[in-house]
């Protein structure tokens, strides 16, 4: 802990008329009046109902994620991820007219551009995805009913594709770093998220502690689609964020 060394430093930039010093002085006065209470240590979660045979994290993840209205898809092991994803997106229906792809999704996990055949060889398409603000790479599925526009911003895409940093079993959560494109994670009505193999953590604490070492500016934990019960206590999905949240577990 950086402790009192920083506490006593001169006034900071964001200080309005000595507010910082005065607040801290009052806090110090208050803490001096009662004993310092110890930290209770770590919280043991989850209390496994049957500690002898805890279920595999992936099993628990699927259970928890789907119970929160998330969907899980498993790629066909006999096809390349690109081919599989391209067909999967085609199967989502006609409303998918454009796809936005997060900045950190590697080419091998991106669907084929609209006019390219789904062949494994020769379609590496190693060009890096879009880097500009809110303007990630955009591709379209084959046989798309409408011609696709490149550089369509995510707010006009039907599907967003992201890469999760990992997933959490006990809460059914996907961990999405801001090094992917946030607008892709949030604006399209359908969100498809790749979960790399071996990246499902049993406990949230374990995931956050590992993430701590490489913490990006922003992190989103997504545990199913956007929901609200603010109108007449009836649950509606897709209020602001995606209405469908599909986790793809790489094997």
């Amino acid at each position: 802990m950086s402790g009192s060394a920083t506490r006593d430093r001169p006034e900071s930039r964001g200080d309005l008329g000595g507010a910082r010093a005065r607040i801290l002085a009052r806090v110090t006065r208050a803490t001096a009046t009662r004993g310092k209470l110890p930290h209770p240590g770590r919280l043991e979660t989850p209390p496994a109902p049957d500690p002898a045979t805890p279920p595999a994290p992936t099993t628990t993840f699927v259970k928890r994620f789907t119970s929160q209205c998330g969907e899980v898809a498993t790629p066909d092991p006999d096809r390349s991820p690109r081919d599989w994803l391209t067909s999967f997106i085609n199967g989502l229906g006609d409303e998918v007219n454009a796809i936005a792809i997060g900045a950190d999704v590697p080419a091998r996990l991106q669907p084929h551009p609209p006019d390219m055949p789904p062949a494994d060889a020769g379609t590496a398409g190693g060009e890096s995805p879009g880097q500009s603000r809110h303007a990630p790479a955009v591709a379209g599925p084959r046989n798309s009913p409408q011609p696709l526009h490149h550089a369509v911003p995510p707010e006009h895409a039907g599907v967003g594709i992201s890469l999760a940093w990992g997933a959490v079993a006990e809460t059914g959560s996907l961990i999405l770093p801001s090094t992917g494109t946030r607008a892709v994670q949030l604006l399209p009505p359908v969100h498809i998220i790749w979960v790399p193999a071996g990246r499902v953590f049993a406990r949230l604490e374990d995931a956050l502690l590992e993430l701590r070492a490489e913490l990006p500016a922003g992190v989103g934990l997504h545990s199913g689609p956007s929901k609200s019960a603010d109108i007449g206590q009836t649950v509606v999905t897709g209020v602001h964020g995606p209405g469908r949240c599909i986790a793809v577990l790489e094997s």
Partner: protein
Amino acid sequence: MSVRISEYATRSREAIRDRPEVRTAVTGATVAFDEKRRRAYGEVDADSWRRWAEGVKNHLLTHLDDYLAEAEAQLEANGADVHWARDADEARQIVLALAARHSARSVVKGKSMLTEEVELNPALERAGIEVYETDLGEYILQLLDEPPSHIVGPAIHKTLEQVQHLFADRLETDPGGDPDELARAARDVLRDAFINADMGITGGNFLVAETGTVALIENEGNIRLTTSLPRVHVALVGIEKLLPRMSDLAGFLQLTARAATGQPIGCFVSLVQGPASAPGDDGPEEVHVVLVDNGRTDVLLHEHAWEALRCVRCGACLNTCPVYRQTGGHAYGWVYSGPIGSVLDPGLLGLHEAMPLPFASSLCGACFDACPVRIPIPELLLSWREEAQQKGLTPWKERAALAGLATAATRPPLYRAAARIGTRLGATRAARKLPMLSDWSNDRDLPRPSPHTFRQLWRQGIK
């Protein structure tokens, strides 16, 4: 939100008498929340989770100066700017200055009780800035110019019919539109607002000192958008919202969601460390964290009330409170209502300002059983009452009336009997008399000996 606590007796009576639909909506929603909370507590070792959370917050509050300094240093290392506000006025000035510096014309907001507390929206509007509340419930209330009535479900006092009417009028939806259609109409308006906003303003559920992480819990995704799309993100965080370490956050995210809505975790959690820096990150260019006191150090200095600062604003004590269920939150007259409001408001505002809230309870104990950080609300109510008596702050008559309300609300057999009489006498007259029957107030200050028994009775009573 202006303080109207002194009108509590009148306003609670009026709420019960004149707006039966509020009671129906609030009771329905809170009973459902409460049942989900019970089920979610039952899935884990809730007892030890709650003791652990109490311990972490006690540790935090007895080392708060160190952790505040650590959080500030971490945030600044992450590239965020930290501001300190002693009171509501300073908090508003800080945000207004930031808005002016960025020539902000349009602001999107995530739900934040603290921004209600410091009355931020009217100040922004006076400065000519367009403010959009983006939580669906908050948006409904903004259209109606009403304050939130519940910490977690700000519009739970509104029925579907009322929202249909409002949206038909303001957003030209079909007067019989279902919740999906209504939500879509709001989403369309707010989607444009998100994309065009110059600044996003949120509160903060937690601030992790170790990493300088502002954590925000929600279900709609509007906070994710508010913290991601605009160029500038400003988070107002009460100084008591800190957590020592990242591993503490893992426990608190889960416990808070279970207590609030019975979920294993909020649908969306945003962890904000600072402005976007990595290539490919389209997040805000500036992140500002405003650490707000506004009465919190007074509470921390108070011999008993400091324990209320453990509060994570989950709303569980509201949901389980028989008195809150009768009136909803507006009657309480300030931002924080229900059991937590009755112990926190006297600390934040001063006991005089918060009278007669410590008397708006039957001390049944249900709130303590629900509270994820084990705030001894009944004990704190008693100590506020004692302090009020010592200071000669409350006339006996008003206290008796409030005790009558609380007792009526927590005693289903009497409640049912009165309701039966009411059918004979005419519903309106019975509703008017119900909470104030003077002979019910005889045992007004006695704690209920067995809260569990009466709560079972109560649940049977409302079936």
